[in-house]
């Protein structure tokens, strides 16, 4: 089945120690998104890639970066995690809106704990 895969499902990192979360997709979608979801809150978009074009949300902290080396993979890098960055990180994909791609397909998420 075509899907969005996130690894690892659970990640523990130390305060200030860089961490990378991974997302891959077999849907061949043009667009990949990263959302942050804190406990009991709605997901919040951090940034997205349309093909190789990176689009950052205005209020996303500089501490968060992303890479998309190819169509299938996208990474979320947190350069110096703080306690406030503990959250569920959700990856999603969609086709380009011009191709009717408004719905997004989500992976299972990575739960990040910062100690």
């Amino acid at each position: 089945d075509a899907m969005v895969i996130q690894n690892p499902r659970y990640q523990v990192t130390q305060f200030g120690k860089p961490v990378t979360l991974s997302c891959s997709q077999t849907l061949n979608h043009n667009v990949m998104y990263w959302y942050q979801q804190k406990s009991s809150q709605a997901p919040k978009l951090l940034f997205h890639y349309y093909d190789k074009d990176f689009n950052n949300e205005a209020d996303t902290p500089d501490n968060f970066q992303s890479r998309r080396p190819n169509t299938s993979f996208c990474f979320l890098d947190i350069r110096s995690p703080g306690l406030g960055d503990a959250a569920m990180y959700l990856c999603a994909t969609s086709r380009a809106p011009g191709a009717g791609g408004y719905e997004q397909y989500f992976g299972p998420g990575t739960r990040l704990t910062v100690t």
Partner: protein
Amino acid sequence: AQSVTQPDIHITVSEGASLELRCNYSYGATPYLFWYVQSPGQGLQLLLKYFSGDTLVQGIKGFEAEFKRSQSSFNLRKPSVHWSDAAEYFCAVATLTGGGNKLTFGTGTQLKVEL
């Protein structure tokens, strides 16, 4: 700016009873609306979507939603709730941005099902 309001933070229903979850949106143009469901520790699963056309849309797991432009609402309904429906439900509106689309979510409604 677009926004989504889910007035009910928690709802408890008995198994077999009907369900309606409320969603109101604020968006200047024709909205692209979604309902997603999230089980604990999991990603988001798309239940249904509205883009245009018939204002009553059918989704998976027996859910339906009705788009009412005059009331700026997109309420989710199910005639008979099953215990497995206990989860968090998010209403969302999509807006085009940077070659992709941004989902703005409501704060979610936590559904509890009593046996």
